[in-house]
């Protein structure tokens, strides 16, 4: 039979195990709101029994290890959902801005302004000799040009905004990659001794979650506990090394400028299709240039068609003997960025040519110009300019709506998955309160054992032989 001190030793171990349990529980409670924290559990095992002649006698309890509750399968699903969510978030942000810029439907929108401009020619036709009607037409021409230019400028500054956003995003991505590589090193060196790097792993998982909102991420853990990360299929973290990312603008002069992302070390570019970065690239490289080219087509058609009639018509005869100007174009410029009312017309509204014959009351040219809106000049002669623009913005409306609902859906999916993950890893305060009580009671009982053993020792010491 072991000595009485063995009983005291068992009680000590029990006190220590209960205290460890209490610490782990209070740590869980403290981290209830910490993002990425996985709840921890202490694994208690009985310590090796001593075999006495009549059988093994237990030697108490051991806190073997502290584990975190985590299922990595859900992590992968969450990362996929986050990358999709990031993509639509970026898209929605840009599209919503567009919605604000285009001012449709309303009297400040391009579709109203175009119609209004061509209508005004009809007003001039009613009184071609009247300076006030010509003045109004001039103002509406300027308004039309400005509307095209403003929209173009805003699209341009949106692109600049996207570029800026991408730069900030890449800084964050590089920072994350750096930290993941660093955590790989620390996790491997911690776990090589057999202990668990619970907090470091939580931190790394959280970083991978964050990274996946920027692009499609795959993380594979090797046997030593370090993860290799690919972003859009390109290896960006391998063990303790990581690849720094950067962006550049490519495209010859005159060509559409495109954004691309490349590895700083090798200079190799790669396609990013998911996450926020994928969303921004998609808007910068595809949606905005596409919209711009449609605006350009509209502006150039308006310029070409108006000028074609205007140049062969006559202005209001001036001077003595009266001479009517001809051969003057109404618009200068060639696309949505350069469209403007011809300077000669701004200086002299009598040069607005509405007369085919040269006579002051003749307004045949004005009718021809006001009729441009009724001609099917777009979409292979199937659409008028109004119909063309309407189809452009209606499509945009659908895109925005689609983005909104996809975003909503993907948020639901993420919520659902995060709930699943939380079901395993999350902290439930009521549960922790119960654990707290559980360990408290165990501690109380163990102290009672100490007291009892102490009394027994007193008894022995005080025995009088």
């Amino acid at each position, binding site marked *: 039979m072991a000595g009485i001190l063995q009983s005291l030793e068992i009680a000590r171990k029990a006190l220590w195990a209960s205290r460890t349990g209490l610490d782990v529980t209070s740590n869980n409670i403290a981290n*209830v709101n910490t993002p990425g924290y996985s709840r921890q559990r202490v694994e208690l095992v009985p310590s090796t029994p001593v075999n006495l002649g009549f059988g093994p006698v237990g030697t108490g309890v051991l806190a073997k290890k502290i584990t975190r509750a985590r299922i990595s399968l859900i992590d992968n699903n969450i990362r996929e959902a986050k990358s999709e969510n990031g993509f639509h978030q970026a898209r929605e942000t840009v599209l919503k801005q567009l919605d604000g810029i285009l001012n449709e*439907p309303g009297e400040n929108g391009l579709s109203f302004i175009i119609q*209004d401009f061509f209508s005004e020619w009809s007003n001039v036709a009613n009184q071609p000799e009247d300076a006030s009607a010509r003045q109004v037409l001039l103002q509406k021409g300027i308004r039309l040009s400005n509307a095209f230019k403003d929209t173009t400028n805003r699209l341009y500054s949106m692109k600049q905004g996207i570029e800026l956003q991408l730069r900030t995003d890449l800084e964050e991505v590089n920072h994350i990659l750096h930290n993941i590589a660093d955590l790989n090193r620390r996790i491997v060196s911690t776990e090589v001794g057999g202990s668990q790097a619970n907090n470091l792993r939580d931190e790394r998982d959280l970083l991978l979650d964050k990274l996946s909102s920027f692009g499609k991420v795959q993380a594979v853990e090797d046997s030593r506990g370090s993860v290799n990360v690919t972003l859009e299929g390109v290896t960006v973290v391998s063990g303790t090394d990581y690849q720094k990312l950067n962006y550049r603008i490519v495209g010859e002069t005159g060509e559409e400028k495109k954004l691309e992302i490349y590895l700083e070390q090798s200079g190799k570019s790669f396609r990013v299709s998911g996450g926020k970065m994928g969303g921004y690239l998609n808007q910068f490289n595809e949606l905005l240039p596409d919209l711009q080219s449609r605006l350009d087509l509209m502006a150039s058609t308006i310029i070409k068609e108006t000028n074609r009639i205007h140049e062969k018509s006559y202005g209001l005869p001036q001077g003595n003997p009266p001479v009517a100007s001809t051969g003057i174009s109404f618009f200068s410029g060639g696309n949505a960025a350069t469209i403007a009312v011809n300077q000669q017309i701004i200086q002299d509204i009598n040069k607005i040519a509405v007369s085919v014959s040269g006579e002051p*009351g003749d307004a045949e040219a004005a009718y021809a110009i006001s009729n441009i809106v009724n001609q099917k000049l777009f979409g292979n002669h199937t659409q008028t300019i109004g119909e063309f623009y309407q189809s452009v913005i*209606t499509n945009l409306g659908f895109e*925005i709506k689609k983005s909104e609902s996809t975003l909503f859906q993907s948020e639901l999916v993420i919520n659902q998955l995060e709930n699943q993950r939380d079901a395993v890893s999350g902290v439930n305060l009521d549960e922790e309160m119960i654990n707290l009580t559980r360990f408290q009671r165990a501690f109380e009982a163990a102290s009672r054992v100490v007291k009892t053993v102490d009394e027994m020792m007193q008894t022995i010491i005080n025995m009088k032989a």
Partner: protein
Amino acid sequence: MRVTSNSYYNLILANINRNQASLNETRMHIASGKKIQFLSDAPTKLGSLLKHKDLIQKNEQYLQNIKHVMDYLSVVMDALDHGASILATVKSLTVQGIDSLSQDEKKSFAEQIDNYLNEMLDVANTTFKGKYVFAGTSTTSQPFTLSGDRNSVSITANGIGNALRAEIGQFQVEKYNVNGQEAFLDGGNVFDTLIQLREAFRAGDQAAISMGLGQLEEEHNQILASASRAGALLNRLDLLSQQYEVENTTLQEFASHLEDADLYEEALNLQKQEMGLQAALSVAARGMELSLLNYLR
């Protein structure tokens, strides 16, 4: 399934957010009176809304054009009516003068006719907003001038231009002016007739006076015919403009139906959503009270 503190709070938060978002949207609809404020609000309705607005805008322009033409035509009709009444007066003078008048009286008739010649000239040179209405497209130069010896009226160098036309509908450009040539010169020259009559009275030439009377009759009819052509067009345009107005009212109703918020419906929505939010809030408050902590003392 384990439900953790965080997933509970997240759920509550997501529900409250969603309720507040839809509540906010309804509030915006009510405050602005519009259902469609942005492209994304109702892309399916956007296309037809824009099309309706486009049509309304076009019709309004046609209405404006028609109004201009109608103003012009009423000036023309006034002028032609006045011309016709001049000729009627001259006719009755002539009938009086054919017989039983002394040479002196005939001379005074000749003077009166000379005055009417001036008035007729004014009629033929009528202006509307500073433009000569009978001059076709040569609106800025006076079409008719009386020679210095007052013996002939000629069309000035720029004379009478081409027809005036107005856009009164899509692909519908209509000629609307009354040409001075047709009204006053073709089928008998009004001015020549008046001059000849004046001369006949001066000379006391009985035969010439009665010939002039017949001529006058023809001219009178010719001017009345021009006036009635203008009147017919005026009537037609009046009908057309009423048609456009009716069409626009209908279109505006359509557009309003698509675009404007139905306050009754929105108010109901508001109430429904407020109830939803209240429910979410009360569930949140009740859930948050439940904790083991309340019972561990």
